[in-house]
Each structure stands twice: as structure tokens, then as C-alpha cells.
């Protein structure tokens, strides 16, 4: 059996980030990617929060092939024939060191794969790993087709479905209740049109979320990210809600109906759909993070469940890159000590626990449970829009005073047992 120091299963952001760190330190590393190229099987909504990871490989992020730095954040609550959009803009979102960028994965991952190759690692495309090889409970390599390759350590960054790691007993099989389906269209629009429609300075970008009627009461929402010359328009819907739903709407129809809504139609008018894509999203939070390391292996990125949907901020790629960085650090340490057992690789979990990755997931421990509350996606978007609509409505009748209108709306929709309970449960998030 051919033998290398480190095999990385999956050439996405977690795997490539680990490979970059290892190759830079002279560790012999082979990345096995099942797509034609890195990014060929990946989908993002798309935004990468780059601020958390600037300290890792700082030389890389200056050259990041981003689409647009996000300067404007919009949240649209969709009610019953009325909707409310809140816009948050800050000089500190974009500026000289933007906190986040819109990205497209085929471009981003191929770029990172090139950087990894320059550092001396081998990135092998079209190589689907079929099995993690184990001996006496220790991961000793991989099988891809008829070939077996041995390694002192395997970094498993195979993505959200965990087909290999669950088969090998390293992680649980992914369950619908802990995942959402994300799917989107990339719609081409001229950059000038994008800047006009979202009121952007040249080159800057916007991110917009939509909550409420668009998911028909299911957990999730719509999203829109502006790229250079396209927008990514899609939805994320909780799988458990989706499969229990019996009104005849299929997931793909939901996106079509979303696009036809009067709030969305003018935003996509004249656009040309260029690609349609779908991917599962881990939404289980920290309670679904598997054992992160064992004898001869580490898990990183989506395989480790490292993503965080906090309703208005959605993270995953920054966690993937950070976990790859810490995986590389742990493997370097293990190599120095000549110990690739669970004990030798234990610094990986410790580093993640000491970093924003598991700290932020720990802080957000209650969020997955909180999001199971259907009122978030039904009652509140409607109620907010109804309240504001009443304040902005003038008709032939004598009008109640502003305070009275607001008070009436608040009493009707926000002061009852259910909403008080919701407010109480919010203290945990």
C-alpha cells in the first residue's frame, strides 16, 4: 500500500485550509477531491465572513477572489400583502478591511487549491474516496476505487453528508431534523443594474434575507447576495418541516413562487439564470458536533457540523477554514511528537474550543431549538408589517394618534401568552 503522511478527504475550504497549513510546514499531504476541480460540488449562499479568519494565513486573504464586500444588510419580513424591510448600513461593514464578502465557490475553491498546490501539496481531482480504512479501531488510510493509500493521519473533510465517516462509525448519520436544504439560482445582471437596485457604491455589495410568507410557515427563509455580475437568489428550508408538509408544494416550486412575489420580481427583472444548485446545510448547532478526533483521524468543516445559522447571520465557511487551520496545527504537533493517536491529536479540539469556532457555537447552543418555533416564520413577520402598515395608513376616517395606533398593534400581536413566552425564550439566544 502506498503511504503518505497525511491524506485529506475533500478539497473544499476545510480540506484545502488544512492542506495549505500542512504543505507550508513541509508535511507530505494529498488532497482527494471528487469533483472535476475544487468547488465543483460545493454551494454557498453566499457570504464568507473573512474578519474572523484574517489572522490565519494573513497573506492569503489579500488575494481572495471575492465578488463584493458587503456594505449593506437587509432583512425583509414578509407579511400578508405587506412587508417590512430593515436596512443596516455601516462604514465598518466594508471599508478598507471588510468583514465579509460575497463569494462563489467554484472560483474561490479553485483559487485556494492553486495556492495549496504552490505550497507543494498534491490536490487530486476526480478522486472519490469510497472507504476510510481502519485497523484495530485506528484510521490507517483510504480506499478509492481499487486503490488503497495509507496515511499516518486522515483529515476527513468530506462535507455535510458524512457518508464515509458515518460508515466508519466516526460520526452519526446526518438526520433531517438537524439539517436544512439550501438551494439557489445564480442570476446574471449587469453590475450597474445591481448597484442601482441595491443602492450600492461601485464594487460594494448587499445581502438580503427574507422571512415569513415565502416559506409558508416552514423554518427558513429566502436569501439574496449580490455578486460582481450576478445575484445568488435562493432559500434555506428546514428539512424536518419540509418533509412533514403535505400541501402539495414541492421544494423547487417554493423558489419559483418566491421569485414571482411582488417584492422579488423587480429585483430579478431582466436577469438571466445561469446556474441552479442545491446543498444540505448543517443546522444542529453544537449539540450535533461529533467527536472531532480519534486515532489517526480528524474531522473538519461541514463534516464536523461547524455551521451557525443565527437567523440574520449565517456562517460556515469561516468555521471550515478555521477548523482546517487548527487541524493542520494539530497534525504538525502530532508529527513532531510522533504520536498520531487520539491523545496526540487532542490539541485540535482544544484549539477549536479556545477559538471563536466552538465558543460561538456554544453561545448559540439554544438557537436551533429556538428556531423550531413556527411563530418566527408565521406570526412575527406578519405582525411587524401589520403594525407598521397601520401607522402609515391614512384613510377617510379620523385617525387615531400615533401612540394609540402603535399601542393597539402591540397589544393585538405582541402582548399575549405566546409572545411573552417567546420573549422569555429569547433570553437564551
Amino acid at each position, binding site marked *: 500500500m502506498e503511504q503518505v503522511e497525511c491524506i485529506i478527504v475533500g478539497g473544499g475550504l476545510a480540506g484545502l485550509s488544512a492542506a495549505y497549513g500542512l504543505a507550508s510546514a513541509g508535511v507530505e499531504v494529498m488532497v482527494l477531491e471528487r469533483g472535476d476541480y475544487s468547488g465543483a460540488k460545493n454551494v454557498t449562499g453566499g457570504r464568507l465572513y473573512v474578519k474572523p479568519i484574517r489572522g490565519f494565513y494573513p497573506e492569503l486573504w489579500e488575494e481572495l477572489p471575492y465578488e463584493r464586500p458587503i456594505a449593506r444588510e437587509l432583512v425583509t419580513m414578509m407579511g400578508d400583502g405587506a412587508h417590512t424591510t430593515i436596512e443596516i448600513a455601516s462604514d465598518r461593514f466594508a471599508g478598507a478591511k471588510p468583514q465579509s464578502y460575497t463569494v462563489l465557490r467554484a472560483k474561490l475553491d479553485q483559487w485556494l487549491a492553486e495556492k495549496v498546490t504552490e505550497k507543494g501539496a498534491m490536490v487530486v481531482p476526480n*478522486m472519490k474516496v469510497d472507504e476510510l480504512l481502519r485497523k484495530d479501531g485506528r484510521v490507517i488510510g483510504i480506499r478509492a476505487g481499487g486503490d488503497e493509500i495509507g496515511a499516518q493521519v486522515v483529515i476527513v473533510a468530506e462535507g455535510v453528508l458524512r457518508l464515509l465517516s458515518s460508515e466508519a462509525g466516526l460520526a452519526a448519520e446526518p438526520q433531517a431534523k438537524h439539517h436544512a436544504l439550501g438551494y439557489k439560482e445564480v442570476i446574471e445582471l449587469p453590475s450597474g443594474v445591481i448597484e442601482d437596485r441595491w443602492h450600492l457604491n461601485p464594487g460594494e455589495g448587499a445581502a438580503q434575507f427574507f422571512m415569513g410568507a415565502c416559506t409558508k410557515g416552514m423554518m427558513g427563509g429566502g436569501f439574496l447576495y449580490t455578486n460582481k455580475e450576478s445575484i445568488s437568489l435562493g432559500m434555506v428550508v428546514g*428539512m424536518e418541516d419540509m418533509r412533514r408538509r403535505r400541501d402539495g408544494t414541492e421544494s*423547487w416550486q417554493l423558489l419559483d413562487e418566491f421569485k414571482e412575489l411582488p417584492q422579488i420580481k423587480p429585483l430579478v427583472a431582466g436577469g438571466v439564470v445561469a446556474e441552479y444548485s442545491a446543498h444540505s446545510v448543517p443546522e444542529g448547532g453544537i449539540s450535533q458536533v461529533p467527536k472531532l478526533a480519534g486515532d489517526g483521524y480528524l474531522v473538519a468543516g461541514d463534516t464536523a457540523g461547524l455551521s451557525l445559522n443565527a437567523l440574520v447571520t449565517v456562517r460556515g465557511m469561516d468555521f471550515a477554514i478555521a477548523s482546517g487551520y487548527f487541524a493542520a496545527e494539530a497534525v504538525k504537533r502530532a508529527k513532531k511528537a510522533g504520536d498520531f493517536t487520539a491523545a496526540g491529536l487532542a490539541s485540535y479540539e482544544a484549539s477549536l474550543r479556545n477559538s471563536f469556532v466552538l465558543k460561538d457555537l456554544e453561545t448559540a447552543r439554544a438557537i436551533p431549538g429556538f428556531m423550531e418555533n413556527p411563530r418566527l416564520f408565521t406570526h412575527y413577520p406578519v405582525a411587524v408589517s401589520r403594525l407598521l402598515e397601520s401607522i402609515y395608513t391614512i384613510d377617510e376616517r379620523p385617525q387615531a394618534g400615533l401612540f394609540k395606533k402603535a399601542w393597539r398593534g402591540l397589544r393585538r400581536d405582541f402582548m399575549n401568552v405566546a409572545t411573552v413566552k417567546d420573549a422569555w425564550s429569547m433570553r437564551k439566544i
Partner: protein
Amino acid sequence: MPMKIDAKLGLDVFKLDKEPHIVIDTDVCKTVCTDEACVYVCPADLYERDDQGRMTVNWEGCLECGTCLMCCDHKALTWKYPSGPFGVQYRMS
């Protein structure tokens, strides 16, 4: 008019595998399953019953999201990634 789902899938690059990467245990679909979750959740609209009422999947247009796998309560699906160089190849996403 919304774009037809087939037309949307027609925009994607697929490299066709020689054999299906999704295999359905149609007996389970026939005898146990009443909810047809796969039909509802698949974002590519690949699942449908044929004339004889057997569940079928047009696996050639699979986006490899794995949603059907997670949503089938009856374990009727044997689901692998397409082998080697095959399956969807996103150019943007």
C-alpha cells in the same frame, strides 16, 4: 412564467455516470411509504411514480444535496455519490 425545472437543470453541467448512484427499494415505497417525502423535498424534482405506481428517480439530474437520503423515513434509498469524474459540476455556485 417561472422557468421550468428541467430548463433550470439544463443550465447545469452534468457528467453522466454509467450506473445510477441512487437505488430505490421500490418494495418499501409500495408497501410501507405513504408520505413520499422524496417527491416533496427533492429540489430537482427527480422523484415520481411510474405507470405501475413504482417510485422512480431520474438520478441523472441529481444535484447531490442528499436531502432525499435524510428525509426518507423508510430507508428505501441506497445513496452514494456518483463515482470518479461523474455527477454535477458546478461552474459558479
